[in-house]
């Protein structure tokens, strides 16, 4: 195909595809021909290497239509996202506050566990109980604390990932899905995942066993299933 035929066909195809700014495109391809001719290529060769005008026009159409369509929607989308971000922002703040609360709980539980187990009783906050009960309750609460700490860590990473995925989604809506969407689940290495899982299982197991053991021992020691009445707790 000669240069003049190529450009004519391209113009026709661009027109058929309702592509805007056709003159600018044709200038670019005209220049391409001129450079290549100056390098000694024949017009037919150049046209063949450029690709079919129909395909080129289709590429322009595919890239053009969504972007001009998108532009009109962008203002609306920005407004909508402004409001959405306000609410989602509150959600994320609450979620992070929850993480902090859970972290504080786990630290408290761990400290309580240690003070019970080590018979450390500041200000007589801990009511009376035989030391064996204290140790068992201590172990139980200690591992409850570990469990809560693991939960805190996981929740933190989960919320962080959720935030990232949300930002990615919002970015995608503006840029016409340029990026792959992100997973909403945090990505741990398989080693970290195995560690978290077995640590959580062990914590849960020790917590349960120690709690039941503490209850059984206390009930036998006090001679009553509701041992806390015998030891005058909660009065």
């Amino acid at each position: 195909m000669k240069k003049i035929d190529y450009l004519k066909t391209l113009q026709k195809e661009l027109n058929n595809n309702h592509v805007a700014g056709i003159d600018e495109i044709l200038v670019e391809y005209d220049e391409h021909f001129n450079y290549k001719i100056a390098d000694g290529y024949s017009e037919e060769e150049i046209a063949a290497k450029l690709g079919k005008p129909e395909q080129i026009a289709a590429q322009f159409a595919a890239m053009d239509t969504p972007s001009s369509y998108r532009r009109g929607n962008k203002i609306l989308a920005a407004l909508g996202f402004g409001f959405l971000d306000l609410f989602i922002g509150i959600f994320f703040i609450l979620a992070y506050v929850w993480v902090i609360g859970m972290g504080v709980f786990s630290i408290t539980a761990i400290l309580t566990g240690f003070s019970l187990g080590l018979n450390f009783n500041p200000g007589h906050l801990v009511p009376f109980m035989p030391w064996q009960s204290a140790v068992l309750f201590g172990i139980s609460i200690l591992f409850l604390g570990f469990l809560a700490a693991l939960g805190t860590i996981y929740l933190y990473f989960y919320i962080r990932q959720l935030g990232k995925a949300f930002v990615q989604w919002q970015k995608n809506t503006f840029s016409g899905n340029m990026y792959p969407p992100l997973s909403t689940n945090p990505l741990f290495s398989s080693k970290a995942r195995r560690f978290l899982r077995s640590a959580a299982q062990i914590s849960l197991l020790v917590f349960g066993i120690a709690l039941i053991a503490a209850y059984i021992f206390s009930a036998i020691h006090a001679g009553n299933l509701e041992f806390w009445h015998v030891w005058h707790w909660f009065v």
Partner: protein
Amino acid sequence: MNIQYKKGVLELCVLAILYRHDCYGYDISEFISKRIDISDGTVYPILRKLKSDGMVTTYLSEDSGGPPRKYYTLTDLGEKEFLQSKEEWSSFIRVVEEILTEGSHEKN
């Protein structure tokens, strides 16, 4: 190579070339089609898309005495986009490489 793969990567390549220095369209088309097996005309639609997305702008320059050439240059947005995409691409291919070689280890 699959054509769909290439299209996604071409945008990144164009940004990379323009990150080094400003070019006119023909320059970019030549640079890429000498290295990657695509038709010469494919680069121009990509340049136009990058322009309409605000990643690049154009200016006219009459440096070599000939007719004015339309040069493409990265905008601040384009530069930011390139550096981020480059980062994402590098970590992406690292993982793909890992997966590919892990697969061959298991077979051995």
